[in-house]
């Protein structure tokens, strides 16, 4: 029966990866950049909730909402200050800047909160579900995480299909210049994408820290990288791809930890990425890319 527990935990971790990966994949699809700092926005979200709940003693739901707002603003500011001026620069320059932003967020957090791990109080208050005479336990965090992931995924898909702003996002991701000529507000669309992505990162931060309740300035970086792996795995730019990639990655990681070696779990996750890219360089659901001569 322990297999089912590992699987469910994997599903929960995978759902967090999927939420982060959705943000990654949207930003990549539209700004064509690897936002290395995306993972650190998760950490910022975690610290916002931590501060509000421990300092101001507010209700968890309110804390999460404030954190979402804070991260959304942060995401938009980062884009405006650091990435927008480089929109026509080489990808290398943008990536290095993103790495700089990532370090900046980590070190600001380090100066404010110090390097020792903070104990994060879960924002979820639900009773666990027991199945098969208590052999399988699904914690409240797991339930909420999986449900949140599914809702977000459906909402995002509908948003992109049904709304004008969503269609504008599609257009900008296809061809920025053509979209501009068609009268689409490209800057606004990119800002909106960063806002949504960062808001999702805040949600992911709340869920991640509730399930694994320690918080340090580096909490976001590894999940951020793994979520990018998930996004690449599923095919970057594709929303269902990010969802599938995230879930699969979480399951692979947890089953590796349980059955192979906990030290090797990360290596296995990364090996999966490499194998996928070798077999299908654009990921599971990615589009083919070719250069015009």
């Amino acid at each position, binding site marked *: 029966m322990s297999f089912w527990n590992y699987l469910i935990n994997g599903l929960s971790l995978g759902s967090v990866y999927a939420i982060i990966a959705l943000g990654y994949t949207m930003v990549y699809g539209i700004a064509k950049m690897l936002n290395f700092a995306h993972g650190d926005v998760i950490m910022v979200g975690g610290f916002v909730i931590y501060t509000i709940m421990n300092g101001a003693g507010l209700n968890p739901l309110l804390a999460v909402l404030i954190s979402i707002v804070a991260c959304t603003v942060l995401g938009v500011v980062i884009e405006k200050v650091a990435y927008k001026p480089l929109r026509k620069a080489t990808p*290398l320059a943008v*990536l*290095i800047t993103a790495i700089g932003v990532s370090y900046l967020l980590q070190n600001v957090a380090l100066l404010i909160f110090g390097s020792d791990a903070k104990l994060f109080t879960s924002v979820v208050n639900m009773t666990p579900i027991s199945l098969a005479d208590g052999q399988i336990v699904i914690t409240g965090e797991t339930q909420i995480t999986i449900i949140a992931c599914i809702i977000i995924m459906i909402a995002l898909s509908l948003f992109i299909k049904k709304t004008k702003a969503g269609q504008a996002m599609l257009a900008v991701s296809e061809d920025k210049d053509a979209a501009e000529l068609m009268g689409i507000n490209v800057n606004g669309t990119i800002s909106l994408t960063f806002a949504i992505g960062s808001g999702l990162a805040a949600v992911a931060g709340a869920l991640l820290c509730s399930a694994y309740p320690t918080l340090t300035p580096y909490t976001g970086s590894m999940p951020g*990288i793994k979520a990018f792996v998930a996004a690449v795995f599923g095919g970057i730019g594709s929303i269902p791809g990010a969802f599938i990639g995230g879930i699969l990655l979480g399951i692979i990681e947890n089953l590796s930890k349980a059955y192979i*070696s906990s030290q090797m779990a990360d290596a296995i996750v*990364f090996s999966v990425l490499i194998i996928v890219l070798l077999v299908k360089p654009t990921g599971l659901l990615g589009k083919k890319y070719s250069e015009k001569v």
Partner: protein
Amino acid sequence: MNKQLKDNLITYGIIIAFYAIMQTLSATGSLSSLFKGLLVPVCVYTIMAVSLNLTVGILGELSLGHAGFMCIGAFVSAFFSMCLKNSGMNSIVRFIIAILLGALVSAVFGVLIGIPVLRLRGDYLAIVTLAFGEIIKNIVNVLYIGKDENGMHLSFTDTASLNMSADGEVIVKGPQGITGIPNDSTFTIGIIVLLLTIAIVINFVNSRSGRAVMAIRDNRIAAESVGINISKYKLMAFAISASMAGAAGALYSHNLNNLMAQPKNFGYNMSIMILVYVVLGGIGRIRGSIIAAAILTVLPELLRGFSDYRMLIYSIVLIVMMLFNCAPAALELREKYSLKRLFGKKLKKEEA
């Protein structure tokens, strides 16, 4: 004199002068032990920066797994030295072989990793090199190798499963790594390896192979159209870069008693640190890499109280540098208010 030759001689000159000054200070006893302890690390990180610059600046691909190659070189060379520790071999000869072996094995891994990785583009390549770096670090952490009269024993679980005889010696102990490495690294050897590294990079860049690599960087399709074998030259540059990181790893490991693969020395954060040196020194500029790496290795150690803010300042400098050097708007502004132009205007006014 040829401008390029002059430029290269300045680079060599700076290093030799640095060496001479340090040796003099050291001989007269005016060098603190803290500073002395930094001399080998300075060599290690300058070599790392030069070698990464070959990948980032000359080949034009962003690798975020460079510390992985350093890790391979460190462990392979240390393992070799441990095996021959009591063989009576001259320690300098043994160390030279260890460095070459570290470089060679890293180059082999560079080729093995490069074959799949170099087919990818830009961001994908960056993330996959990062993945490889982490995989290498993880594998080293579960690696156990022991030696007894029956030969070598290898395991990926623990010391016990090596099935060693009673008088056997466990050399690589998983997360504990390798202990008791002979301290063969000296400032002199470090400087020699650094000089060799720079000479190799400079000569490579000025040969047909180096030109081919830069041609691929500047325009892959045009390079193909003039008959350049793309994968061959990409792989070549990547392998040379990896081998130099391996040599740096050998210098690094023989400067320690206990070698462990931790996030802080071989994780992706270290790869990014080296990248910071390269960017701050100027992408594609060898001398810049050397100066940036040397200063940024020494400075934080000398300004201990400052260390809390070190990474914060690095990150801000990194962002500002990229915005200042790469943003089209900033470039325009610089063009407008450049010293040359301002002077030019002034001169014209005076003429009038």
